[in-house]
Every structure is written in C-alpha cells, then in structure tokens.
C-alpha cells in the first residue's frame, strides 16, 4: 500500500512548470482544488473531438455516443460510491448539490413529507463550509424553520455532548461535513445518523473533503444525501454530484426546471421525470461528467486506501516538522486518528497573508484566509489561518519544503 509519487507526478503536466522564477511547484492547496492528470484531460478532449452532441436529445450516432458516455460516467460514480445509477445526480458543484436539496425541500407543498415550516429545525455544525451553512440559513428564512448547530471543541472535534438536545423531534434535516476543510477533522457519523433517523430527520453529508481522499460507501454510512465536487478529486471544474436515496429523490420536488427533466408540458403546467433526470434540467455538463469518470478511474487505479494512508503519513510528518517552529500553533487536531491531510496553523507575529506570500515566493502554494468557514475562524479567535493540504501527488520533499519555507518566512518577517 505505498504510492509511487514520482511516477504519479508525471501524469500531472502542471508539475512541469516553474513558480516565481525558477522554483518547482509545491502544490499544497488541493483542499481548494486538485490538479488534473492527463487521462482526465484526454477523456474530455476525446468527448469533444469524437462524440460531441446533446445527450438524451438526438437519435443520430453522435447523440447516441454522447448519451452512452454521459451515462457511463454516471455508472462509474455510482460504483465508486456503492450506489445505483438512478441515485446519482450530476450538478455543477457541491454548492449546487446542497442548494438543490435545500430548494427542493422548500418547493414541497404543505402536506408533502418534505414540507418544512415554522416550528421545524435544521441542524448544521460550527465547522461547516459556507456552502453547507448559508443554503440552510436561507431555507430557514424561506420557511420559518430554526437553525441549530453543534459546536466545536478546542481540539477541533465536534462537540456531541448535547446531541440529544440538538437533534430532537423538531429536527427535519441534519447537514454536516464529513471532513472539515479547515481542521482536517473527520467527523464520527454513527451517533448523528442514529439520532437523526430516530426522529425521522434526513442526513446530508458534505463529502467534498472525504470522497476524494478515502473510500466512502454510501450504504455503510447510512446517510440520506451525499454531495461532492469533481474538481477536488482530479476531475474537471464545473461538475459536482448529489447522491440521494432513490425513494427520496423520486419523491422530492424538482429544483432547476427546463428541458430533459419533463414528462409532459402544457402552457399551464408540467409533470416531471423520475430521478436522476428530474434534477438535471438542460443540456448537461457532459464533457465534465466524462472527465469525472476518468478521474474516478485514475483514483481507483491507485487505490483510495493507499491514497489515504499516504496522506496520513505526510500529515504526521508535517505536524512533527511544523510543531518545532517557534510561535506556531495548530488549529485542529494534532493526532492523526480520524483526521485527513488538511493542516491549519498560525504563526505568532506573522499574518497568514504575509506567510502565504512568502511561501508563494519559494514556490509553495498554500491557502490563507477564512477558508469559507468564517464562523469556525471566529470560534478559534482567528481572522485567518494558513492551510496546507495534501494529495496523492505530494511527497515528503513537499512536506520538508513547507516546514523549511515557514521557518524561512519567519526569519524574513521577524528577524530582520
């Protein structure tokens, strides 16, 4: 279960370029977006140069082929998740996937089991990405429901001590992240899913930071919805996934409406197809779905377990190395159990922007700022943090360069 990073790097053409002069690229920003292997770019290009036509809308040969490739990509995603094709909806991003569920719920008429109203409660956590927070705030605004949340402990773990109070008979949906994009924390789901289902609440898992990095099987997790973005898992920009239990998707009201999702249309009204088509209005992002299929092939080929182990090894090493730097504190757990390859930290006396700028000058790409998790920043009394995140194409040299880079930046700002 070891990974040959040298050979993997060769599949990613971007590692051929130099940064700010003649520095090699040390890309530690995969939690924001990942780099793309040639096989993904080739799959997209082949779609356009050999098979491009509107899927599901034509009977000519190109349309047939485009349909088969697009639906083939759906099957790949389904297999990858341990799901069936009918449960996989292609969206443009995880952000759209989450909004889809939130809008669909508020489109439900009174009397529908999906209808949400004043008196109902929606549960999130303090460590959510804005994409899994604001859509629920807005759903509450539209329906009169109340937003509640789990808080986060000092060590960056979810505080579940009041689980029974937060999830109660009024709870309708619990939307929670699988792995924090700031802390690296992987959340335990069993007790949350159990509590939610005990009160007939739905569970939506924001799997943006988990599906790309370790094996996720929807049947095992027991959640009702799961969302992620293609661009964070070697896939193209412009494609995301909503997985949902088929019996739910088939009953939920549509979100975006238009072509290819209808059963019958008159000037007055329309009836809608079953999922997944119900939720895919318009000519779909075909090339991007096909690219995502190729990305899944690439990941599967390397092996998700090996990738996760590799990231854990890098994370352990990075925590050890950074820990010795004077004035450096971590935001998030420092033990590697139930944790992924995302590390946030602060260095006393250096603002993250300045630190990030210096690292960039050495060729090291990290993310600085609030990471679209502003409430979590406030929770830790930080304006911003510096975040390094790892993926299969990173190696120990990248970790050494990061540690060395932070030391050098510290000297630059604080010791001159």
């Amino acid at each position, binding site marked *: 279960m070891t990974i040959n990073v040298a050979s993997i790097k060769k599949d990613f053409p971007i590692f051929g370029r130099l940064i700010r002069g003649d520095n090699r690229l040390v890309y530690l920003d995969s939690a924001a977006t990942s780099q793309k292997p040639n096989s993904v770019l080739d799959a997209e290009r082949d779609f356009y140069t050999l098979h491009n036509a509107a899927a599901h*809308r*034509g*009977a000519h040969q190109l349309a*047939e082929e485009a*349909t088969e490739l697009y639906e083939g990509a759906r099957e790949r995603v389904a297999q990858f998740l341990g799901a069936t094709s009918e449960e996989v909806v292609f969206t443009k991003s995880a952000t759209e996937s989450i909004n889809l569920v939130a809008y669909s719920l508020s489109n439900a008429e009174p009397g529908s089991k999906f209808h949400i109203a004043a008196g109902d409660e929606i549960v999130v956590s303090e460590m959510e990405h804005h994409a899994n927070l604001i859509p629920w705030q807005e759903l509450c605004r539209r329906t009169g429901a109340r937003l509640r949340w789990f808080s986060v402990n000092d060590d960056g773990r979810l505080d579940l001590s009041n689980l029974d109070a937060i999830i109660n008979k009024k709870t309708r949906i619990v939307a929670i992240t699988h792995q924090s994009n700031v802390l690296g924390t992987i959340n335990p789901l069993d007790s949350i899913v159990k509590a939610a289902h005990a009160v007939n609440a739905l569970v939506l898992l924001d799997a943006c930071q988990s599906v790309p990095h370790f094996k996720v099987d929807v049947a095992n997790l027991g959640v009702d919805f799961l969302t992620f973005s293609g661009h964070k898992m070697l896939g193209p920009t412009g494609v995301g996934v909503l997985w949902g239990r088929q019996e739910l998707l088939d009953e939920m009201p549509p979100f975006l409406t238009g072509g*290819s999702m209808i*059963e*019958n249309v008159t000037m007055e009204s329309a009836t809608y197809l079953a999922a997944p088509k119900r939720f895919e209005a318009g000519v779909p992002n075909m090339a991007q779905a096909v690219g995502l299929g190729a990305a899944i092939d690439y990941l599967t080929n390397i092996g998700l377990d090996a990738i996760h182990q590799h990231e854990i090894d890098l994370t352990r090493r990075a925590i050890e190395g950074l820990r010795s730097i004077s004035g450096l504190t971590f935001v998030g757990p420092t033990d590697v159990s139930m944790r992924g390859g995302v590390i946030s930290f602060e260095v006393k006396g250096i603002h993250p922007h300045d630190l990030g700028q210096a690292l960039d000058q050495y060729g090291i790409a990290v993310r600085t700022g609030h990471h679209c998790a502003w409430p979590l920043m406030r929770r830790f009394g930080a304006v911003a943090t510096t975040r390094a995140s790892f993926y299969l194409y990173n190696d120990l040299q990248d970790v050494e360069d990061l540690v060395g880079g932070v030391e050098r930046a510290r000297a630059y700002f604080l010791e001159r």
Partner: protein
Amino acid sequence: MELDSLYQEVILDHYKHPHNKSLKPHPTIQVHHVNTSCGDEVTLNLHMNGNVIDAITWEGVGCSISQASTSVASDLLKGREITEAVALIEEFQTMVQSKGTDRGDENRLEDGVAFAGVAKFPARVKCALLGWMATKDAIVQATTKEEK
C-alpha cells in the same frame, strides 16, 4: 445495409397495417404511456378474463418502431396467462436492451424478433418498448386490483 436490419419488412408491414389498433370499450385496465424524450404516446386497453389476457387494444401516435412493436405485442400476448405474458415481455425487453448480443427466440417471440436490430440503436430502444411496457404496467395494475 444497416437500415434494413432495423426496418425489417415485418416492422413496416405492422406500421402500415397495425393490428388491434382501435380501443375496445370496457377494459379491465386502461393505461396511457408517453415516451417523454420524443412525445410518442400510446393508450392501451387490457381486457382480462380471469388469469388470461382476452384482448389488448390500443391507440397511439408515434414512429414505425413504436407503432409496429405495439401491434406485435398486442397479437403475441393475447390469449396468454399473466405469468406467461410477463415472461415474454421480459424476454423481449432483454433482447432489445442486449446491444445486439441477443437475437431473440423466434419460437417464442414470433414477429417480435424483427426488433432485434433495434438493440443497436440505443435511442430507439424506448420506442420498441413503449407498447410492451404499457402492457406490463396494465397487467401489474390488473393484478393489484384483483388482490384488493
């Protein structure tokens, strides 16, 4: 030429002279199916006599494949017991969804095997299935009605 493998003589015959195409009143079940990607429609009356299909009559608009296939189904399934009919429908379905690997058993599907060529044209599979799926749906509804 491939076009002929799709449009066999028997298909064009059924298309020009469809069988059982006029709704007989007082059906056990009436169903209405639409091929949503193209607008083709079929209204189908299923007449049961106990366990046996007494008649299948229909009306519809659509392409030669959907019309001929409904015509063939309405002939083939008449006089069959429910389980037999469902088995035949499933055989037909397997054949047209086989992408060309299953040519169908002529002893069982009779004129139905003329649609084996459809399997190579994924966009037309739904056309070939329209009448058959409508019949299956009607049978399921008739059975459930029975049980109530």
